[in-house]
């Protein structure tokens, strides 16, 4: 098994180093290692995320899916004991380089979380706040325009247009999650990271979010972590399958087009996981 992994990794990392200057990819992880204290949680993962596509990260619990996702916008920095090695290239720059400010990274790489977490402010403020703290210079009407546009892009406008001053917490779970998406796209990121965005939602809300993702990927590159394999199959263009090595560290088992991963996986482990025989 370890030999298999080695070959797949070698293939991907060697090709990326030589052929691509990252320009074609939205973001790219190179030989990413993440430690929590002395525990290695993500072991040597290299992954190229295609621009304006949806990439799903799937894998069993504890395989480091969320950690990999959070490495793309340096959210792991918030965990005091977390340490990251390797590179994450974004517009040709390693976001873990000394002179890169994680705050700037997070503005360019937005994030939607597992549990809807709108701010306890009005719907309007939920969206305006992010723009404002990031130095939005427009006047009041331009700000209103931005709010309306973001809500429309997040397919929430029709439901909330008459109650923009109500608290974001007064919305239903699915609406809250779309508000979080609206909030994220209001600051015009290049990439949106989604960490199991539908796991707390009912099927209808989930469907809405999935449709929304298909719309959004015309303008944004989306990376989604999901436990739900049907969701990954339905919504994503590319799928990365992570699993655990013998030291319980997360490794990239297989990465490719979603069709190929689900129809014709190269690895036995992938097939077992997808068909429900493992994990």
């Amino acid at each position, binding site marked *: 098994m370890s030999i298999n992994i080695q070959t797949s990794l070698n293939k991907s990392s060697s090709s990326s180093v030589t052929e691509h200057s990252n320009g074609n990819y939205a973001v790219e992880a190179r030989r990413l290692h993440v430690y929590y204290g002395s525990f290695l949680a993500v072991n040597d993962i290299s992954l190229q995320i295609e621009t304006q596509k949806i990439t799903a990260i799937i894998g069993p619990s504890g395989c480091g899916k969320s950690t990999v996702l959070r490495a793309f916008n340096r959210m792991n920095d*918030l965990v005091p004991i977390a340490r990251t090695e390797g590179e994450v290239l974004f517009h040709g720059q390693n976001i873990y380089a000394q002179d890169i400010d994680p705050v700037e990274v997070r503005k360019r790489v*937005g*994030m939607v*979380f597992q549990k809807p977490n709108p*701010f306890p402010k009005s719907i309007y403020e939920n969206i305006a706040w992010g723009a404002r703290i*990031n130095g939005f210079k427009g006047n009041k009407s331009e700000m209103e325009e931005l709010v309306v546009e973001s809500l429309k892009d997040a397919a929430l406008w029709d439901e909330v247009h008459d109650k923009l001053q109500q*608290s974001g917490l007064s919305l239903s779970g699915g609406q809250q999650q779309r508000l*979080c998406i609206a909030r*994220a796209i209001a600051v015009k990121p290049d990439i949106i990271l989604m960490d199991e965005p539908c796991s707390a939602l009912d099927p209808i809300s989930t469907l809405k979010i999935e449709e929304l993702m298909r719309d959004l990927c015309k303008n944004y590159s989306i990376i989604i972590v999901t436990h739900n394999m049907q969701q990954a199959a339905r919504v994503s263009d590319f799928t990365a399958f992570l699993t655990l090595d013998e030291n319980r560290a997360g490794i990239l088992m297989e990465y490719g087009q979603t069709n190929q991963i689900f129809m014709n996986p190269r690895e036995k482990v992938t097939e077992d996981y997808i068909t429900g025989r493992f994990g």
Partner: protein
Amino acid sequence: MSLQENQPLYQSNLNTRHRRGKIWRTVFIISTVLAIISLVVLLVTIIDDSFGYAAISYKIPLSEIAPAGVPLESLTCAELIPILEENVSPNRFRQIQSEKPFEEWSQQECYETVVYEVGQPKAEETWSLFYSIRYADELKAYVAQKYPEGELIFKQWLNIDFVTQPQSKDPLIAGIRTAILGSLYIIAIVIIVAFPIGIAAAIYLEEYASQSRVHRIIQTNINNLAGVPSIIYGMLGLAFFVRVLEPLTSGYVFGYSSEATANGRTILSAGLTLALLILPVVIINSQEAIKAVPNSLREASYGMGATKWQTIWNHVIPNALPGILTGTILSVSRAFGETAPLIVVGASTFVTFNPDSIFSKFTTIPIQIYQWTARPQDAYKNIAAAAIIVLLVILITLNAAAILLRNRYSRRLS
């Protein structure tokens, strides 16, 4: 019963489980009732002492002040003022006039002044409210026999004059205005000092400080400081604010000087001492409130590209504020009722002038209560009880205002 199933490894113990729950419920009810009873007893005792009969004797009997046969209270001001002038010293007369010109006096004021200045009443004995009601007739007979020239009056020790008048040696006219003002001044300083420092320290410890050994030592010390007896803080205040920082706390460095120099035993020293006293509690409460802010909110903020400070200022503090306020309100109430450290810091026991700045001498309501309860005469016990009621009313008012403010704020938040 009909639902009961027959499983060999399970015994039917539903009744026992329910009974256990009921027993505990009874225990909780009893505890609550005990707490309520003790509060009621406290209140009843205080109110009992705040009202009741008092036997008043006069140096010059009232019947002898007025011209023969005419009751004193039927005289007009024009008639009463000459009586006053005749019977008090010229100095005292001028003093009374300078406080308020006679032209502005009402008949009631004239009468009361004459009774007080000429008759010079003295509270010989006092009785509590319930005793007064129960044994009214016996008391009348007793007083008539023991103080033939005196009278038995039903005295409301707690009245408007009590709140608005300054202190006096005479319990009949003593008030607690100066003590109320002293307390309010001091509590203002406590809030201004302890609130921002406490919150700032809590924010640093929760949001910035790394989990190191030093951090743990600091945390342990703060927790311990919260349990240090208040008198220790009084000694600290005496040594540091009163002695070491005397030029500062008595206002010399600011060019403030007063004839009644307080030598550092000022409102400022007292306020700073009490601020130190409640600081650990404010810090601990604020830390708890900050800890209670869900991490998902911080992540949401960081995920939008907010800096640490933007996250703290826009999300952590607003969401922690109701909790911080709850803790702070409680600790400020504690500071309001503190006595021991203020005695050590040097509270004056007799202040008849309003504090005019933070560099004034001070007394507070609890200090007054303490002073009065320590005296042997009956009447002091009554005005101490009245002062306790004033203290409680002010506390309830302050707390209610703070809680209303907090609730309005948290409603706006959700």
